[in-house]
């Protein structure tokens, strides 16, 4: 059995959102719901200011609060460690959503189930990469077996300092980041879901 994980190298993410859209296309994720997106965060004061690009998705935690919280057994861990939701077993009690510190789970109204990133287990079972990894133009995302020392993910993870999003939550994420500019703490208060109320209204008040 593999210990599947993802490494995201923030040094080469260009914030292009190819991953976000590839995920939408792969799963036809309803508008307003997100399995994967890229957070933009500005830091600094003029003229010493920059913008960070941070791709986010379900962390497929080793100690997954969603899995522990689900009363119906719909949230499961697959053999290679992916945390997924069995649609037929979900009764929309939303316990998983409340438990997830990453706001990675949403309700798919059409299918009547909680839903989230699956690490594209339907693709990886065919030997393909997850859609977001495949779409990334700069190869800033690597997917694979964290326990295989000869694999690219383990090699790249061991060649740099890696960290995780919201380490304090103690969930032991399997999504690792190379984050030399220390950007992840800037989104400690955010989740995968996009704040759809944040836009300025165009309607005169």
């Amino acid at each position, binding site marked *: 059995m593999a210990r599947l994980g993802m490494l995201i190298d923030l040094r080469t993410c*260009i914030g292009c959102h190819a991953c976000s*859209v590839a995920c939408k296309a792969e799963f036809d994720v309803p508008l*307003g719901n997100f399995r994967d997106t890229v957070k933009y965060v500005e830091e600094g004061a003029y003229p010493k200011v920059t913008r960070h690009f941070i791709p986010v998705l379900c962390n497929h935690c080793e100690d997954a609060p969603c899995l522990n919280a689900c009363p119906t057994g719909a949230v499961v861990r697959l053999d290679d460690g992916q945390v997924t939701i*069995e649609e037929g077993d979900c009764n929309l009690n939303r316990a998983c959503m409340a438990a997830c510190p990453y706001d990675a789970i949403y309700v798919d109204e059409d299918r009547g189930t909680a839903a989230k990133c699956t690490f594209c287990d339907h693709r990886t079972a065919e030997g393909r990469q997850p859609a977001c990894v495949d779409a990334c133009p*700069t190869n800033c995302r690597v997917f694979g077996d964290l326990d295989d020392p000869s694999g690219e993910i383990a090699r790249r993870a061991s060649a740099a300092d890696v960290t995780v999003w919201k380490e304090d939550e103690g969930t032991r994420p399997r999504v690792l980041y190379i984050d030399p500019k220390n950007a992840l703490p800037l989104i400690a208060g955010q989740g995968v879901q996009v704040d759809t109320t944040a836009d*300025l209204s165009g309607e005169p008040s």
Partner: protein
Amino acid sequence: MSTWTLTRRDLLRAAVVAGAGAAGLGGIEIVHQVTTSPGLAGGTIGAVRRVASMCQMCTTACGIIANVRDGRLLTVEGNPADPNSQGSVCAKGVAGPSVLYDPNRLLYPLKRVGRRGEGKWKRITWEEAYTEIADRLRAIRESGRPEEFAFQQGRNRSTDIVARFLDAFGTPSAFNHRALCSLNRRAAILSTIGDSDWDLGDFENSRYILNFGSNWAEAHQGHIPVAIRMMRARERGAKIVTFDARLSNTAALSDEWHPVRPGTDGLIALAISHVICAEGLWDREWFDRWTNYPAEKYAEHVAAYTPELAEAESGVPAEAIRRIAREFAAAAPRCTTICNRGSAAHRNGFHNDRAITVLNALVGNMGKEGGWCWHPMSAWDKKALPEPGPIAPKPTARSLIAEAKDWPLANAWQGNKMRVGEIVYLWIKERRQQISALMTYNCDQAWAWPEANLVREVLADEDLVPFHVCLDVMASETSNLADIVLPWTTYLERWDIDSRPPQGLVDYVGLRQPVVAPLGESKDLREIFPELARRIGGGMEEYFPWVTQEEYFEQYFAPVPGGFAHMREAGIHVDPAKKPNYLPYEKELTAEELKGTRTEDGVIHGPEGAIGVMVDGVARRGFGTPSRKVEVHSQFVNDRGREADRTISPLPVYEPIPGHREQLAQGRLIMISFKWNVHNAHRTMQSKWLQEISHTNPAWLNPATAARLGLAHGDWIEVTSYRPIDPEVPRGDGSQVGSLRTRVHLTEGIHPQVIAIAHNAGRTTGGPVASNGRDRATLPGHDSPDYARIWWAGSLSVAQNDILPIYPDPVSGQQAYHDTMVTVRRIAGGT
């Protein structure tokens, strides 16, 4: 853990496997074998066909593979065979299905039944559409004034068929958007090196990249092909320094961002040149050998452009300019500049880009590995792959608008159609050229053009434009002002031969092919034009002898090994014998080439013009300029200017934007526009997935500026724009152009004298996705469950182009997008 033995997901997986030719779960291993080369195009995975084609969500035209099942496009990925994009795509490319299946697509020909612009349509047949259009065009052609048929294109990746139809018709009134895009940069590069109008820095092998206002991470014409090479260079330790008025994503990805006052990029380049000359950091030998101007004299020329002067004008500290100059020169020849609209789309943009280009000559990096490079072909090798005949002769009729002779560099180079797009509708309004029929193709000039309200006024006027046909994928501000609207196929349903300037410095050719059958009754130009030609008659039809489009492309691709069939499978062809275009100027001319030539002042002339230059006693190819050297001093541009009564300095100079200093002192701001990475033109705003990411455009203001104006984040403001105070610009009287109402977005990532507004917003038509819910008209059969989920309905979305003055650079005609002066005042609640 679940006790289920076979979940729904397992069943799904089993179904996929069964489709691959194996039965049951045991087939998984077989699928692994099928996908040992998962990136390749052609063939199938299970029931999924993998069709190679080319993207056209933007102008970069990356190779793609479309995954299609049962005639439906599922997903789009990159084609690794494309030497430019190397299998990469961006968000726009991946969003292909959302544009193909956009519920607001036009699928049937429409004819207006109310007043023009009233929005009342009836569905007509193609037969009816063809008949009416052909009758109109035939009458124009037979009148002997074919120039009265005008063709307005936006992005055109079907140049062969468009030129063929217009030439066969005999009209020279082919209006493109070059001056709204890249004219100054192209003119600067062409006048300096002659070989090409497009620089292709060898970023991947570079150690130091100086970026003057190019936003390659989001919007550059080489977008992803450039971005992947920049990131690789960075991983190897290259340094990227960006000058930009705004913290673009590119600026954020750079090692250093230096905010600049718009229109001062050229001065910074001249100041860097000053330091390089003054401190002897130049490659003087290369400069003296390969340019037409002595290094000593250029040093004298740039002596006045001190870092202190550049600091005063641009805001970039003199010490930073000195340090950057030293670092850049120290990395030579593995260093290069890149520039684009940030430096070029200005009233002084031609000289800005000349100054930047010559900076490369100063450090001797031109044509070298890791340096500032180019390729003589901006598309495929047209000698190896000539257009199938018969070719129509070029029109003999004249078009005042297309020639745009007020701007001496606009059409100064043969075969390089650089139209002054922004003046087209002004000149139609002024009746400088009679237009009897207009065909708009893949263009939303009524939304995208400067002073778009003037465009709308002209298009609504049936005296000025008696007949208007619009061909587009979806309803637009422009199609709303047409008499007949034709439903165009998306790039996923049509054919093209295509390729882009090769970032890897080896040319290639690609095929765009239908990945699914056209939806509804949509058709491409390649079907429409031959049919119209047959109906117009008068000999036009002779230029369209093929019966099917496949037949035409079979002929076109015949010279490729494996021909058309290979192209359909692979999508891309690269000649393996070709080498990267390094040091092309050093190539020695052969005895054969030198036969029958004469040498005058060192320049070797053949029967068809200059072919080389004597350098230290050796006959070499040199550069494609009149002097066969890098023309630091361009007599050509100076002469062209004189013909049009304009003074164009033969040397790169800094000309401050007229009126900026005075108006900035009065507290006015410079308004710039920009593009987000997920958007391109009006078309991308049709994509629900792209709009979901970027759909609003509040005005960016620096907090210091906001404090001065008494503004807070989210405040409503009125932005009022003014024409330039500039006798060399049409209507350059400083008068008010217009106002827009928007809201403030505070950011540290912008120069305090600047207000920035993203251009990809402000649509009022095209459906609720594109218009943030403003247009809720649904077309028959087009209900979508997503409509209720457009959570950005009502979000701020403002059309900036309405208040951008028509502002051509007097030298070239390039629209000065980033020089508009505005006043900003707080208004209560948006009313």
